[in-house]
């Protein structure tokens, strides 16, 4: 049981390449934090710094009230689940699970008890005497999880653990990881680039961009009030439409006077699911006229791609199978609460 605190943590490679540019973060005991961002944003580096696999250039990492900057990975009381599982191929599942305990001179009966407990929780009891190569991807993933929980560490670190699984298994394991983490109530840091995984797993999400924290908050907070255009487009699928504002007539869309738009607003964001097809001249804070470029049928809903007269493009959702034809002109609308406004720097302003 432990809290993790990052205090202005930085990582500099080779003297001049800043991978992590000052990250401060408080992680509460038992919380599941998901670090998310595009590749190269530093999320894995940050995780590996907590694990002790990468050195910390400056700043402090505190785990359970103890500064762990200079400690070896083994002394930090953490466990990590790797992307490629990193199971020891020459050991059986049982040996894989007990290796960390053996190295810490845990008594034999205690090891047996904990291995039995962990393998029961993960339903891998029947595989205990097999080697990793005799297991499927999902089973290996479970063993990797087992190796983490058997040690009862203060914190779990997950480095994109599901990215090697197929889509169906990924959803199943995602639910399982969440259930397991809740029941053990162990502080966890989870790295992923998959925003669906991030949304569903996180107590709080941390969006990283180029070595900096872009925004921290619950998944719903980030979805409803993205702090920047970066977060806005990263969270949600399909991602939020961003319309560049051009002053003057003839853009093909407008915001009502009652919407209270300041002149400093450069970008307007609207999520595809917040746009409706409008009746002629219906009162709305956002009104536009689009020409349909493409229609994607994905089953329960359809996504319509269109473009305005000023060149801005937009995607919106229509329930069911859309009958809209390509090239048609359509009127669309959205309410004030679903309009996000960003200034020239991409920051949210209302």
């Amino acid at each position: 049981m432990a809290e993790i605190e990052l205090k202005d943590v930085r990582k500099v490679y080779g003297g001049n390449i800043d991978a992590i540019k000052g990250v401060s973060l408080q992680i509460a005991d038992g919380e599941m934090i998901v670090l998310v961002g595009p590749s190269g944003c530093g999320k894995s580096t940050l995780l590996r710094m907590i694990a002790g696999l990468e050195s910390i250039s400056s700043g402090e990492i505190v785990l359970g009230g103890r500064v762990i900057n200079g400690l070896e990975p083994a002394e930090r009381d953490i466990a990590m689940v790797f992307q490629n599982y990193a199971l020891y191929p020459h050991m059986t599942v049982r040996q894989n699970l007990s290796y960390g305990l053996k190295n810490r001179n845990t008594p034999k009966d205690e090891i047996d008890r904990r291995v039995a407990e962990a393998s029961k929780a993960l339903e891998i009891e029947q595989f205990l005497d097999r080697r990793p190569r005799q297991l499927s991807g999902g089973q290996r993933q479970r063993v990797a999880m087992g190796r983490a929980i058997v040690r009862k560490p203060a914190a779990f670190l997950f480095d994109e653990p599901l990215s090697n699984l197929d889509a169906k298994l990924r959803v199943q394991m995602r639910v399982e990881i969440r259930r397991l983490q809740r029941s053990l109530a162990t502080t966890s840091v989870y790295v992923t680039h998959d925003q669906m995984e991030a949304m569903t797993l996180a107590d709080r999400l941390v969006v990283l961009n180029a070595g900096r924290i872009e925004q921290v908050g619950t998944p719903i907070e980030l979805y409803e009030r993205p702090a920047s255009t970066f977060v806005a487009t990263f969270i949600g699928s399909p991602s939020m439409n961003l319309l560049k504002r051009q002053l003057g007539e003839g853009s093909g869309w407008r915001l009502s006077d009652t919407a209270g738009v300041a002149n400093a607003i450069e970008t307007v964001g609207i999520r595809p699911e917040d746009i409706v097809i409008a009746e002629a001249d219906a009162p709305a804070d956002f009104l536009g006229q689009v020409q349909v470029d493409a229609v994607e049928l994905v089953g329960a809903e359809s996504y319509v791609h269109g473009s305005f007269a000023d060149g801005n493009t937009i995607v919106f959702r229509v329930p069911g199978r859309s009958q809209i034809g390509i090239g048609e002109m359509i009127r669309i609308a959205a309410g004030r609460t679903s309009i996000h406004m960003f200034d020239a720097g991409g920051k949210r302003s209302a």
Partner: protein
Amino acid sequence: MQNVVFPNKILPYLLVAPQIVLTLVFFFWPASQALYQSAMREDPFGLRSTFVGFANFSAIFSDPNYLHSLQVTVVFSILTAALAMGTALLLATAADLVVRGRSFYRTFMIIPYAVAPAVAGMLWLFMFNPAMGTFAYLLRRNGVMWDPLLDGNQAMILVVGAAAWKQISYNFLFFVAGLQAIPKSLLEAAAIDGARGSRRFWTIVFPLLAPTTFFLLVVNTVYAFFDTFGIIHAVTGGGPARATETLVYKVYNDGFVNLNLGSSAAQSVVLMVIVIALTAFQFRFVEKKVHYG
């Protein structure tokens, strides 16, 4: 299995012909000659040979010199392979830790492999020559009665040293490649699991190197058995008192020096059987246990 059909009937035969010719000329022909010779006995003047069946074989197996040579070979091979592989592994793990100048260090380590066996032998002979060798001088100054020309054990140490030294760089290359093939995340997982230093080496790294180690074991054994003739010839000439006379050296000595062709041929047939058996045994029984994947 897909059947590849060449449009031309003769082309495939032409393509495999060089390989076939080489094997025929340099392996099957001499091997069949050896088989034939091993059943013959030459008269003292080399004018006539008589068929004697297995008499040559029964003669060598009841010859104490031959049995002694067998023993020498086994001791020599085990020592050489162990020394060459052990040292190479030590150097490779050390090289794995080198960050700066890594490629220079590795290239540098390969040089001994480019040295011809006879040259390597001469090098060691000079260094340890009791009359003028630098190392011999150092040894004697430190109270070691160093004289490989008289002491069989010291002669053995010398040829093992020279033979192993030549093979170290080869082994080193393979061990370095083997170490690099171990996924980094495995070592990181082991670090988190609390295994450090020698413990991590023996429980994770060494077992994962097993395929490489096994391959090198085969190569080094065959090397020590067959490719060390030049070194032994240059350093000790099989002496003193046959203390370093391996089976291969004895084949040469009996055949080309003593001109006992029948016995020499029988010995080379035995060697052939040994190497086939050794390789078959290693691949059949050991290889299965060393691959994970």
